[in-house]
């Protein structure tokens, strides 16, 4: 028999890896272009609604909707990047914040207009329902699936960034943009593809999030706070950092709700402020 603390730990990690999927794209694009994209979770929300629509209206199987959510969010992000974002790469923080808050507002209103304001629900396939008994601890299958997906994606990302030509370009551009340009790397195109990849992952995260944390039009703002916390705690441009920060935040949030419910969300804000005071560039940040 395992004590309940392991159950809390398991739930915390499952929640953490979900937050990781939602935030890793923002971490990389922020590290790459220093672009403060507060509309990041709008792409996640888009992915979520794509899955809901495909499953409930067109009866697609759950697993088949996940790539669709990824592609839809990535495609939408490329369009916005070409029209708006690219004009503001050299603009001030304030302009970037205003533009992306504006886009987030529009996305929330559009989602509320199209899908009404209620919580969306989907019917997950039977093999993802229920739980597995593990030494007396009930581990929900869906959470195990989530952790598996996140581990595969982290592995793919790390391998992709460390051992491929594209990854080398991204790392070079993050480290020293001017030098990378000087060596003939097309930083703008690298950024556009990274941006699409990051937004696509957010879309995937949004689709996977429906079962665990729900989906409504305010998703773009509710989880933006969590994502920003993870990015700033983990350090910009660091995948390992985002993973560690997401697990830290996920576990402290679940543990806080379980052991000291009267504190509410107070705990994670406090964790974030303390980490930032201690290391302003984040746990794994270099600057």
């Amino acid at each position, binding site marked *: 028999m395992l004590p309940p603390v392991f159950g809390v730990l398991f739930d915390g990690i499952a929640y953490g890896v979900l937050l990781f999927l939602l935030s890793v794209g923002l971490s990389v694009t*922020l590290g790459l272009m*220093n672009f*403060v994209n507060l509309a990041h979770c709008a792409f996640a929300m888009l992915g979520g609604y794509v899955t809901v629509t495909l499953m409930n209206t067109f009866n697609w199987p759950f697993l088949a909707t996940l790539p669709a959510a990824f592609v839809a969010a990535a495609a939408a992000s490329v369009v916005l990047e070409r029209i*708006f974002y690219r*004009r*503001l790469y050299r*603009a001030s*923080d*304030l*302009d970037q*914040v*205003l*533009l992306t*808050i*504006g*886009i*987030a*507002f*529009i*996305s*929330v*209103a*559009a989602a*509320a*207009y199209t899908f009404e*304001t209620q919580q969306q629900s989907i019917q997950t396939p039977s093999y993802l329902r229920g739980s597995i008994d593990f030494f007396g601890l009930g581990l929900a299958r869906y959470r195990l699936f989530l952790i598996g997906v996140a581990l595969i994606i982290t592995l793919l990302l790390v391998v992709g960034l460390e051992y491929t030509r594209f990854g080398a370009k991204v790392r070079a551009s993050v480290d020293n943009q001017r030098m990378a340009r000087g060596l003939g790397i097309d930083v703008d195109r690298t950024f556009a593809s990274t941006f699409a990849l990051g937004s696509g992952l957010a879309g995937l995260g949004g689709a996977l999030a429906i079962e665990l944390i729900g989906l409504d*039009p305010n998703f773009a*703002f509710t989880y933006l*706070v969590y994502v*920003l*916390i993870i*990015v*700033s705690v983990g350090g*910009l441009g660091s995948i390992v950092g985002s993973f560690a920060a997401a697990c830290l935040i996920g576990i402290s949030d679940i543990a806080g709700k379980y052991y000291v419910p*009267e*504190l*509410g*969300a*107070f705990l994670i*804000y*406090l964790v*974030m*402020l303390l980490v*930032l*005071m201690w290391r*302003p*560039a984040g746990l794994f940040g270099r600057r």
Partner: protein
Amino acid sequence: MATMAGVAADPHAYLRAQTSWRPIEIVFWLATLVPFFLFPSYLALASQIAITALFALSLDLILGYAGIVSLGHAAFFGLGAYTAGIITKPALVSLALPAFKILSFEFPGLEIVSFEFPGWSDPFVGLAAAMAVAGVFGYASSFVIARFKHLALIMVTLGLGLLLHEAANRASWLTGGSDGLQGIRIGPLLGRFPFDLYGYTGYTYSLIVLFVVFLLVRRLVNSPFGLSLRGIRENPVRMPAIGAPSPAHIRKVYTIAGVIAGMAGAMLTQTTGTASLGVLEFQRSADVLVILILGGSGRLYGGLVGAIIFMIARDQFSGINPQLWYFWIGVLLVTVVMFLPNGVLGGLSRLLQSWRARTS
């Protein structure tokens, strides 16, 4: 860039030229009296506008002049609002050490202080208390703010705002939690003029406070201190090199802005007689940012003009779906960033300049 050449030649003459009153400013302030005569049924709205304008003015100090992007400015507004409300409530204050036991040795309980707090309902006492509380919080947090920039700064301001909102939500014994603060009693102004439903007293009060604070802020930004703030905004690395320490200046201006935002919050509580969690919400921080950007930041009147446009528009469209309202706010933000980089006032002054260039 003729004015900038003037700075190099004689900074005092430049500052003096900046402080002289232009006719359009006098017209603007005279126009603020118009609601008394023409729209007496809208005085309550007018006082809300004046309060919002004061709040936007405080954000302008740190954002427009010192270049600090804050997503949690409602923290000060909320502190002021709750302080002004709580201080009017009578309460039994008792600070006591409970009895405790160490290794079978019992210490008796100790009553440190206990008294009946009567509740101070005078508006000016409430205003002063709100300023003090917001100022202390502003000064304490300014040490944190001055250390950060870029994303970390945005996150710290956002985090402080969220932290305070959550604290007020949880401390329901003090704030009433999500039900809002109950039992606020606001006394008559100067012991004579009670706050009425039509907003005569409310608008007079908020307009006078706004005007006085505006005068002080106007003096402040046109002082050498104000110039060094602008220097920090333009180049934070160079300012210390020429002998103007950035962190010290940022601490000062952040505290001052906090005090002003606290005053605005206190006046909201006093003119409406209520204080709820809405005063601390992220939405309020975002709204005031929108207002300032709409009017134009870094030009004193930007926040005032933005507040007038925003509040009147919200009043007119109050019937529509709030989702739709935020859709248009979003469109407006994107448009302003893309086409009107200096807000409405910036756009107007550019039009005026091109018109002058064509006529001369």
